[in-house]
């Protein structure tokens, strides 16, 4: 129970939509969303296929708690093989569409094949139809959203769509839902566009029931809400400042990657921080931040809704960007800001709007532009090649121009769309790409936060903070403080975070809930809602099972332990300033212990006994 038990299979080649029962045994072993859809993916595709071929499948999956009142349970994930990394991709998004899938009666949708011309999926409860999308192909997500709402005359329709960047083959395009929430990383939007699938429009009115023990469930849910309402990060920090609460903190501890990781502190951090978003600006006396906003069912409400200052150069003659829309989160502010050396808050907000409008992952975009800036400044790229753009660190104009081009797949924007790894290889300087397994780093320099180096190196989707967020422990002291500058104990810490997060992601919950919730707050909610035996231990074991399944997919796809690595810069060039001054990341000290704790060989291959213990 709690699962609807229904899977929608959409064959784009044949243009058919069919209903099938959810594999209950798999659900009991893999829970839902990330875990369960990865199980489906590994069973249904050969990991070696080309991610952009019709052989790849794309799964939109909810968790068993999605759509229930469990706080933060509005989430869904997109699972596919990534064109950016060649690994399994799983990108998670909030907003409202996950709950709508569930209300329409579906646990997951599996897309397979490729449509011969652009289509979108229209889903109204049981009714599933593929309809022509020729009129919105070549349009932005925001335009497609408006067109679909008008066409179906339904203001409550929830929409997820890909933008022009994805259509043009940008390798880090996401899928945007509810205008400004994104399944952002690893190019899941690129896969969707490669199938000629422009959008999914869904309306569900059936409700979410099927709770195993409603009384116990509501008790556990209310107890959980109380914990979130009382925890300092979830009750104060995130609602007031959003994830941007971290900008000044991370800068102070000297773990703020700056100018393509040449520096670890950004002199302009205060100007693009959460605090700056609250400051009234000279142009109109209003702050950048209009309000905070919640995803479905969320007590925390970390979302930012912002405006760009009137008269700013980015919006001259562009009235469509004068209203409020999704504002800067920490990752976006960092990647678009400190990593490129740009400290213009309005320019970053504009670029963030464009990332939402045309579905680009702001982390990969900012990092790739940062790499391009270093290539340019070192002479590897010339001004002729950039089409006249002076690609210097700190240039808001260059950032804005390149983002506009990448959004539409034009000019030098096409090269940015390759991502940092392919760009740096193309221009002969592969060492300048700050990536793991081809995916760009997020906003924590592993020289100043040692555990994150291991978390990045071993993440199953390439560099990523959301697979094992040891920042929580190393910087914020949650659930326990560890020293960010030492490597002792980090292997176990990374493993614990990775396993717990895999379970949280598979339940339908938001990982930010874990700033206040422990697994002991989460387990009773799942146990009361779902069939099966869900305890803290069984959830952690489920997380470990998911981790090993993802790992197996990647190894079968051709990756090896040698891919669990960091760029030389982080291993050899010491941090120049701040508390981590003189430090590099000591990955080699942590990795062997990590493999051992995982029950993997010295080459990073899960041992047979490990896989059989977990029944993978």
């Amino acid at each position, binding site marked *: 129970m709690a699962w609807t038990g229904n899977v929608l299979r959409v064959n784009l080649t044949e243009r058919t939509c069919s209903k099938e029962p959810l594999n209950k045994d798999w659900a009991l072993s893999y829970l839902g969303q990330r875990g369960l859809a990865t199980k489906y993916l590994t069973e249904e595709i050969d990991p070696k296929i080309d991610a952009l071929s019709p052989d790849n499948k794309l799964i939109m999956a909810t968790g068993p708690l999605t759509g229930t009142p469990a706080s933060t349970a509005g989430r869904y994930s997109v699972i596919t093989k990534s064109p950016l990394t060649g690994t399994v991709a799983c990108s998670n998004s909030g907003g409202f569409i996950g709950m709508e899938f569930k209300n329409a009666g579906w646990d997951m949708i599996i897309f397979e094949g490729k449509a011969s011309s652009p289509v979108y999926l229209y889903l109204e409860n049981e009714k599933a139809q593929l309809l022509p999308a020729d009129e919105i192909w070549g349009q932005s997500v925001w335009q497609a959203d408006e067109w679909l709402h008008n066409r179906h005359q339904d203001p409550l329709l929830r929409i997820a769509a890909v933008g022009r960047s994805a259509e043009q083959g940008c390798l880090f395009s996401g899928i945007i839902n509810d205008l400004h929430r994104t399944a952002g990383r690893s190019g899941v939007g690129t896969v969707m566009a490669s199938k000629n699938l422009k959008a999914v429009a869904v309306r569900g*009115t059936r*409700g979410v*029931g099927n709770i195993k023990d409603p009384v116990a469930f509501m008790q556990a849910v209310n107890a959980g809400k109380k914990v979130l309402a009382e925890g300092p990060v979830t009750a104060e920090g995130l609602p007031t400042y959003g994830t941007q609460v971290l900008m000044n903190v991370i800068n102070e501890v000297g773990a703020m990657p700056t100018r393509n990781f040449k520096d670890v502190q950004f002199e302009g951090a205060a100007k693009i921080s959460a605090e700056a978003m609250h400051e009234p600006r000279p142009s109109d006396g209003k702050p950048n931040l209009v309000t905070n906003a919640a995803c479905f*069912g969320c*007590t925390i409400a970390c979302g930012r809704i912002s405006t760009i200052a009137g008269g700013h150069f980015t919006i001259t003659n562009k009235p469509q960007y004068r209203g*409020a*829309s999704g504002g800067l989160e920490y990752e976006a502010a960092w990647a678009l800001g400190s990593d490129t050396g740009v400290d213009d808050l309005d320019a970053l907000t504009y670029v963030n709007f464009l990332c939402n409008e045309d579905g680009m992952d702001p982390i990969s975009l900012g990092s790739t532009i940062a790499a391009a800036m270093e290539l340019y400044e070192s002479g590897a790229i010339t001004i002729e090649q950039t089409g006249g753009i002076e690609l210097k660190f700190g240039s808001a104009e260059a950032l804005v121009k390149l983002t506009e081009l990448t959004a539409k797949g034009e000019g030098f924007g096409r090269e940015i769309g390759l991502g940092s790894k392919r760009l740096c290889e193309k221009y002969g300087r592969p060492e300048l790409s700050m990536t793991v397994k081809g995916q760009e780093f997020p906003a924590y320099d592993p020289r100043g936060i040692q555990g994150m180096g291991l978390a990045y190196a071993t993440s199953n989707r390439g560099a990523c903070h959301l697979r094992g967020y040891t920042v929580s422990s190393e910087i914020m002291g949650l659930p326990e403080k560890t020293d960010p500058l030492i490597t002792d104990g980090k292997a176990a810490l990374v493993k614990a975070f990775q396993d717990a997060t895999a379970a949280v992601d598979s339940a339908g919950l938001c990982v930010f809930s874990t700033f206040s919730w422990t697994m002991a707050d989460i387990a009773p909610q799942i146990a009361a809602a779902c069939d099966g035996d869900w305890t803290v231990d069984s959830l952690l074991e489920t997380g470990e099972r998911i981790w090993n399944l993802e790992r197996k997919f990647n190894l079968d796809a051709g990756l090896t332990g040698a891919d669990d690595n960091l760029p030389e810069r982080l291993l050899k060039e010491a941090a120049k300033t701040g508390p981590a001054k003189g430090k590099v990341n000591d990955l080699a000290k942590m990795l062997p212990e990590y493999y051992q704790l995982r029950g993997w060989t010295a080459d990073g291959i899960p041992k047979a006994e490990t896989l059989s213990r977990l029944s993978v």
Partner: protein
Amino acid sequence: MLKSLQIEPEKCTGCLQCELACSYHHEGVFNPSKSRIKVFTFHHEGRFAPYTCTQCAEAWCLHTCPVEAITVNLTTGAKEVAVEQCVGCKVCTIACPFGTINYQVETGKVAKCDLCGGDPECAKACPTSAITYVDAEQTGYQRMRAHAAQSIKSL
């Protein structure tokens, strides 16, 4: 003491927990589309506005109902729909100036806020206190207080 729902849209984050609580109380399922309180999002203004029946003293829905299916709950002041009596003619939905009474296709009847018998679930579920249940004669006091705070600044 008669109480009223007090709604302060500026506090709302658009999370829809009120809609979930409402639908669960009245319909036994978590289903925002069946909620009697609705939260509207004005994306480009960056605003969320929860909206529901204010329980008019002279309720137009009540006066207009041809079969007298809408009555006053004397304890709570709520205008309640007697489902057995409602014939689904929808006249009340036209009469209500605020649109807060609506037809349900599944039941063939109308549904509206009934203050949950005096313990409104939406107010209990709201994490930001954007919805509270207060003395009906004091729903303006919060705003009055805010303006009073402004005025003391200039003293």
